[in-house]
């Protein structure tokens, strides 16, 4: 019996959200008194033995470059086989793009119950109960999994990685890889940018910024903070910003350490996507804006004046430490 953690990689690098999943899976293994192991698909340039520091003793790898693109069908088949081979009883994913494509599919294949979007360790005192976010972050549900094998996908940014000591051994998994039925014809990655769902800091703009030509002040602040950028729905709808930046109930749901909302009113549908952020800062010229009720810090003021000053203040502060 063991806990198996799916390690997601992109361009040969292990994703930050996977390090969280590894730490989380290793903690479940400790709780159950069993071993924690990982599985990675495709060719990886990162040193996989170093993942031992996050609490896993072994990494199973299917070292085949045909797996460098996610094909849920192939991935599900291979991961399910690895679960069977390794005798894992708990399978952990990050609830990122890959997790959303693959986790439920593997669960169906194994006839295993799944909790997707988990945000805390399972309660194993009486059965196996996992807490997850529901109603787009407005509430939590405790879900009991009844099946022998359990699948959990963990919300990004909801479990802190812990770096300890240790090295993992690498075991090559000899599994036949079927030809993919998906032909990838183009990849458009915004290089250098921090993926929104993994970002520690997110700077977000709303209709209060008046037009796309005014985004410079926001981008400067984001750059100074090493932050990802986001926007409200009307901003995405008006194509002021790319639609994948749209956060909220009908957009991306995020939980960064710091969310800075600039010229966003804080409609309930917007809050639903960002209210799991640890610290929320609101900059809005209207002191009655609903967002202030959900905020930790706020400035009532004109974004066009406040934001450049904030960028300058942070720059100065960084220079002095």
């Amino acid at each position: 019996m063991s806990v198996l953690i799916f390690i997601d990689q992109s361009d040969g690098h292990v994703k930050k959200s996977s390090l969280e999943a590894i730490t989380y899976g290793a903690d479940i293994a400790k709780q159950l008194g069993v071993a924690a192991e990982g599985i990675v698909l495709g060719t990886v340039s990162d040193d996989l033995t170093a993942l031992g520091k996050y609490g896993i003793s072994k990494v199973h790898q299917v070292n085949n470059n045909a797996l460098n693109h996610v094909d849920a069908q192939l991935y599900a088949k291979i991961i399910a086989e690895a679960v069977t081979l390794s005798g894992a009883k708990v399978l952990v994913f990050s609830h990122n793009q890959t997790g959303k494509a693959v986790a439920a599919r593997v669960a169906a294949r194994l006839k295993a119950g799944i909790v997707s979007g988990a945000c805390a360790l399972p309660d194993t005192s009486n059965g196996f109960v996992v807490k997850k976010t529901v109603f787009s972050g407005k509430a939590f549900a405790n879900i009991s999994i009844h099946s022998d094998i359990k699948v959990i996908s963990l919300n990004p940014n909801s479990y802190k990685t812990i770096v300890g000591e240790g090295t993992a051994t690498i075991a090559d998994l000899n599994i036949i890889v079927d030809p993919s039925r998906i032909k990838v014809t183009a990849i458009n990655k915004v290089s250098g940018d921090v993926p929104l769902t993994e970002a520690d800091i997110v700077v977000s703009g709303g209709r209060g910024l008046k037009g796309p030509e005014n985004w410079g002040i926001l981008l400067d602040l984001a750059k100074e903070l090493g932050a990802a950028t986001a926007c409200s729905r009307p901003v995405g709808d008006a194509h002021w910003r790319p639609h994948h930046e749209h956060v909220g109930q009908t957009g991306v749901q995020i939980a960064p350490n710091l969310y800075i909302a600039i010229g966003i009113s804080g409609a309930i549908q917007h809050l639903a996507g960002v209210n799991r952020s640890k610290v929320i800062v609101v900059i809005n010229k209207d002191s009655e804006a609903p967002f202030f009720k959900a905020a930790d810090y706020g400035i009532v003021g004109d974004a066009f004046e406040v934001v450049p000053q904030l960028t300058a203040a942070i720059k100065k502060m960084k220079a002095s430490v």
Partner: protein
Amino acid sequence: MKILVCISKTPDTTSKIAFTDGNTKFDESGVQWIINPYDEWYSLVRAIELKEKDAAVSIHLITIGTADSEPIIRKALALGGDEAIRVNSNSSDAYFIATQIAEIAKQGGYDLIFTGKETIDYNGSSIGGMIAELTDAPYISLATKFELAGTTATITREVDGGEEVAEVDLPLVVSCQKGVAEQRIPNMRGIMAARTKPLKVVEPIAADTLSSIISYELPPAKAGVKLVAADNVSELARLLHEEAKVI
């Protein structure tokens, strides 16, 4: 060419989220129900657009729910779609639900199955992948663009840090999100027509329930906002660094 569109009923986005019966049940009092926005705005509208381009396309809608989900399925039919199937069950288990849809999918021989990327109440993102597994079809999740030429689909999907374009032959399961289509408002003709469109009710097939909801919790209330004066912006930087320790 047959398309199956999965439709789910969810509380309106402005609904007050509260629980009853010792936090074991969602408080439905005063709640307005809507079609899950991802199902409506993106997957259903895209299916309708495909039919508008090619009259040989037929669209069937499916929902798993009790009789009280019928207004939602009629509303979906008012937007478009030829007929609907309701599998009579109140299950909330993804595997149970996906098994029902997969069964209908196998019987109906659909070329394309659309789901929304998730429901806005349960946020599972599970059903599409499960249907694909249970019907042994390829699965493209988080689609932002969907084009069809003959029996080959060209799909743009969200991947970590960007987008990927892929070609896949039908049959296929796709989960849709923003970008795939634009929201539409049903017109009077559609609403009238929906009343007489066939809505078939079937009983679920036997399937395992692998998970169940034990209880709900609301997040702890925020302590309240700390306001910093607009002429003292550097104080905000200091608080974020020294007090909140987030920068």
